[in-house]
């Protein structure tokens, strides 16, 4: 089942790898390289899932997360934070801002794919 996924990261190579992985899963993928771009894409592209980095220029990932969660039109949106920041406090912050999954870099590709599947499957009944 095809879903729209937005990838947000300022590292071009990471975006490339995620793009390949998620397209291989059969999803439709859009990309953004900073927080502002991410919010813009979210509004137009209407993704089912956002894979979100934290250390972003202009608006950081946590802030993007909060704003997306504050938007009533994005109620069914799933958010997966993928970041190099792995401290417990940061993990908690991510969940507090409304992330569904918090993963740290470097990541195992199979893990990531599995979590994405998981998130999108949960999503299915609500969407049907």
């Amino acid at each position, binding site marked *: 089942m095809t879903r729209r996924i937005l990838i947000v990261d*300022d590292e071009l190579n*990471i975006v490339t*790898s995620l793009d390949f992985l998620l397209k291989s899963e059969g999803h439709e993928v859009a990309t953004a390289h*900073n927080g502002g771009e991410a919010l813009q894409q979210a509004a137009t592209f209407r993704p089912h899932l956002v894979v979100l980095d934290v250390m972003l220029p202009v608006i950081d990932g946590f802030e993007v997360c909060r704003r997306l969660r504050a938007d009533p039109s994005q109620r069914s949106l799933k958010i997966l934070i993928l970041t190099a*920041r792995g401290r417990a406090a940061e993990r908690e912050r991510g969940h507090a801002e409304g992330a569904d999954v918090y993963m740290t870099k*470097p990541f*195992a590709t199979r893990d990531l794919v599995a979590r994405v599947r998981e998130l999108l499957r949960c999503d299915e009944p609500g969407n049907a």
Partner: protein
Amino acid sequence: MLTGSVIVLASFIYVGLLFAIAYYGDKRADAGRSIIANPYIYALSLAVYCTSWTFYGSVGRAATSGIGFLPIYLGPTLTAMLWGYVLLKMVRISKANRITSIADFVASRYGKSQLLGGLVTVIAVIGIVPYISLQLKAVSNSFSIILKYPAIATPDNEAMIPLLADNTFYIALLLAIFTILFGTRHLDASERHEGLVAAIAFESVVKLFAFIAVGVYVTYVLYDGFADIFSSAIEYPQLVKLLDFGGTSVDYASWASLTFLSMLAILFLPRQFQIAVVENVDERHLKKAVWLFPLYLLAINIFVLPITFAGLMHFPAGNVDADTFVLNLPIAQQQSLLTLIVFIGGLSAATGMVIVETIALSTMVCNNLVMPVLLRLNVLHLHERADLSTLIVGIRRGAIIGVIMLGYAYFRLAGEAYALVSIGLISFAAVAQFAPAILGGMFWKGATRRGAICGLLTGFAVWTYTLLLPSFAKSGWLPIEFVEHGLFGMTLLKPLELFGLGGLDDITHCLFWSMFCNIGAFIAVSLVTTPSFAEQVQAALFVDAHSAPRPQRAESLRGDASVNELMTLVGRFLGQRRARVAFAAYAQKRGTRSARELKPDADLIHFAETLLAGAIGAGSARVVVASIVQEEPLGIDKVMNILDETSQALAHSRELEQKSRELEIATEELRSANQRLQELDRLKDDFVSTVTHELRTPLTSIRAFSEILQDNPALELTQREKFLGIITRESERLTRLINQVLDLAKIESGNAEWRTADIDVREVIEDALSSTSQLFSDNGITLELRLPDALPRISADRDRLMQVMLNLLSNAAKYCHNNGGQVIVTGALTPDGLRVDVADNGAGISADDQHVIFEKFRQVGDTLTQKPHGTGLGLPICRQIVQHFGGRLWVESTPGRGATFSFVLPLGSRAGNETAAARKFGT
């Protein structure tokens, strides 16, 4: 007829009468029925102030300065108004402390200081000797005049007469013997002489009677009353002048200074202190003396002007010394009885002064000068002598003879140069020096021993220089040059015009400077010194004498000396019999039957000390008593420790405050050090977390693509190669990052290896350009090099300098606009050293960012959609390298118009010196 034998006989009869009175007075005192215990005797005895100087000298002074003779009597009259307070306080203090002389008074006030006692004694002796010589001069003059009766004579120049043919010498000897008989018949603890006081009071009657007798004779027999004399005098223009200030030598300044001087003299002349304070039997007598004494002064002065005018009119030729008018007027009228009366009056004025003054001085010399020295000289074994009273009496007798003979010596040396009144004023000015220390000590607790010593010393020194030495010089005893031209020829040091202060008479001039220095030193030194505990106790006793009539004797020695020991000790100085009597009286007062039953407590020890103080002075008494109390287990050290407790507690508290302040400062230092550490810790954490993040980023790509390649073996070749390319580049990035982090860490910790050598900068720059030229041409950027012909070699690490150049060039290429970009490298020699600029025409760097870019992991360009490739460590490392060579690296930029990175390297290598500094500021 008045023959020599008649005169001598009359004199001896007179002296015999005095003895009889003194003897009677002593007997009555011993019997407990004092004849001097009434205010009239007290007031009359105070009139010892009026000496032969008054008797003969007033007329002498009036003859030249008219009413200028008056200040000497106005001063005491003014002071008398203050007696009810000042003198009363002195009397109370002296009685409470058994003070026997003015030296004792000063010593006692300042912690029973023997040094001060000695100092006051020396000043008093030196200051009073001229005064005593004045009395000798008066007696000898009057004697030589009356011998020639009925001829009118002017005294011979006595200094020319050989010693043994000199009447004055025998008069001096007789006076000495007389004084010894009066003053040292026995040794009394209280140092009071009732018989003597009675005799002095009688003498005051005699001199007043004699003076009034001649006055009445002149006024009412020679003339027809006051009106007649004054109306006759008005016909002589030179006499009219004497009736007011105009035309006389007395101006307002000297009038004021003489009044002030005599105000002090009536309090501080040793003989006045002796009579007014020491010999006072009842402080209530002061109340009547306050008006009786001025009345006496008025009485003895009423006839001064009539006698003066009569004398001047009778001896108009000026060949008769005005000082002798009192005697020569009756002689001229052949009034033999009156002449004899006047002579006896003058004799009584002189003897009264000499006796009391000499007794007072001899007490001071014995108690404050000789005894302290003897007690210190252990060779005499004074502590072991059974009876010292004979020794003490001997010392006093010696002192009496010594003082009178000093007076005689001064008379021989300087006596002829001065009129009576001038000599007297020299003494007045000397005793005035006691005023600051005594009055200050009585009313100001802050006055200290050192302050008193400094004040007395400076005042006395000024007095000596401005008054005593000039008097010697005028007598020809010293060269006159220093008076006329100043010491060492310095005009400012002229003794009579010190520091250019002219226009004053000698006395006023001396009084001004000596008081100025004395009071100044006394107050200044007192303010900067701290009084000892003993001083503080005595200061309280003196200053609070009025409010606390029975003061706490906190200072008295406490110990377990036995009653016997104390009695024996006192007996050694006073005689055993007197000691037993005194102790028995004390026992009776304390309610015990005999002295044996007395408790040897602090009160008894204090009693013994005060008994001894009367005989040998307060300072010596303390030392002597302490010597036996000290041997007890509860010795003086311990006592003093207890007494010092307060001051120690004060000191401790001060120390604690100091410590507490130091602790607060240390705490503050620790707090800020801790803050700095926390800050450093936070910076380190930030650095580590940033480094970790920066490492994770390439690692993430490498792992992701590795797994993708692994899981997708059927990938297209082009895609496969693309992913492998990414893995390779990200691995390189990771390597570079790790290298740079390690590099920076090494530089910052000072562990980096530097291969410093003389290098050619031109070569380094050219190499850097050629190795990056490909990068520039690929991006369409033009690169220009501007170097002067000659660049000096500098001392640096070639590879490191290369690293800096490459970093700056690659940054320039990175941030320059592709196609149309331009980079200019310039080298130049500046006063600071070798300067290299790398200028681009890219986007530029905002002012805020210009600082940021030299921080680690901060790259400008984050705002761009795409993150620039770089580690964020290049510029921080470059800066560290340049700083290591003693140079600096900075950027200048206007946003939109490119940026110029510049560095300067000093020509002489200072790498070694700069390493530490770089390390310090590098973080």
